[in-house]
């Protein structure tokens, strides 16, 4: 079954729950087979992940409506005027659980952009196809998602006093 891991990983991060993710992936595979005729040989991973995402959103709509649509893409990005500080060493010390929690806390629209970019290593164009949003929105969501991740990881770091 090609791309099963990618499908499960996305569903798992969208639902943050093992059992619901499994149901969604099973449902998505059945739908994929049903609509296989509409698949015209483009990127098969993007095609399948689009179906998984749509299935997951239908599920979220029904069970956790409050989690979707919490962000606004029109929001003007606030440009930080403060000098950015080196963060590489902070991130190196961040443990796996902290990073997982930080991603899990992201709004679902940011979380999916991060998963597709950082874990699936998809291009902006592929992400735009799966999320069905313009390229600029992908860039802005990724920027805001990363900023939020950096902030929450910085926040969790124990400060070492000299």
């Amino acid at each position, binding site marked *: *079954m*090609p791309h*099963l*891991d990618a*499908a*499960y*990983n996305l569903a*798992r*991060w969208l639902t943050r729950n093992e059992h619901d*993710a*499994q149901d969604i*992936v*099973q*449902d998505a*595979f*059945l739908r994929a*087979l*049903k609509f*296989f005729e509409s698949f015209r040989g*483009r*990127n098969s991973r*993007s095609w399948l992940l689009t179906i998984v995402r749509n299935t997951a959103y239908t599920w979220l709509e029904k069970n956790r409506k409050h989690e979707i649509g919490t962000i606004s893409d029109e929001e003007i*990005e606030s*440009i*930080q005027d403060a*000098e*950015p*500080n*080196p*963060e*590489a060493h902070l*991130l*190196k010390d*961040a443990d*796996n659980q902290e*990073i*997982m929690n930080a*991603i899990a806390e992201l709004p679902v629209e940011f979380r999916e952009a*991060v998963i597709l*970019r*950082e*874990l699936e*290593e*998809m*291009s*902006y*164009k*592929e992400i735009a196809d799966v999320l069905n949003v313009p390229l600029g929105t992908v*860039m802005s969501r*990724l*920027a805001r998602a*990363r900023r939020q*991740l*950096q902030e929450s*990881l910085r926040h969790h770091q124990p400060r070492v006093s000299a």
Partner: protein
Amino acid sequence: MNCREIKVLSHAYADRELDLVRATEFEQHLNGCRSCSQEVENIRALSSALKSSTLYFRAPASLRNRIHQSTCARNGTARLRHRSGNREVAWMQWIRWLIPVTASATVILLALLSMPSRTDGETEEVVSSHVRSLMANHLTDVASSDQHTVKPWFDGKVDFAPPVTNLADHGFPLVGGRLDYLQNRTVAAEVYQRNKHVINLFVWPSTRNRNTAKKVTIEKGYNVITWEDAGMSFSAVSDLNPVELREFAELLK
């Protein structure tokens, strides 16, 4: 570019999503601006922290079995039951076979693709040219994602017209073109990209006018696919995995 523009583009730059012209402008700014360089470094540090953690959830074997069974079940699930008549019977039989057939076809394909075949002088030369183009920072002579710019550029520089295709819609954007030297002759090098992987496609007129099947070779860790078609020899080389490189080669048909 000023810092304000840079801050917006820094993510696209760190993700290698800027075109060559804008990436070059961006780098010029970075050289003189500590604040913006720090921003890019922070983005890269975050990306590598995410990649090095075990954040990827692999599908459990039980799920694999569950999907296999639900698609193989003759009576189908409630979801599919509303479809009735002969069409459904044919459909369910098709589903019943599709999964195992796809699975074994994938396994066989992967096995075939990862089987190293004998390398020859030509493959070695192609890989060396690919590596040189990356090391010498001389990837393209003409940087454009438009095939109608790249194709005419070769006019008058080589004595043949290499086919140039734009595969951006398939996730292989065209980056540009370059002249290279292979097999004692000038060849056209077309540069494509797949995420962060560069693909060099070398094209030159074939000495034997024939069509051959695509042959996959591994040389120094690079995957090379060679074939001949319509009087042209093609060599696609990249550090990209063989499955996706094959997808690329098939699109050129």
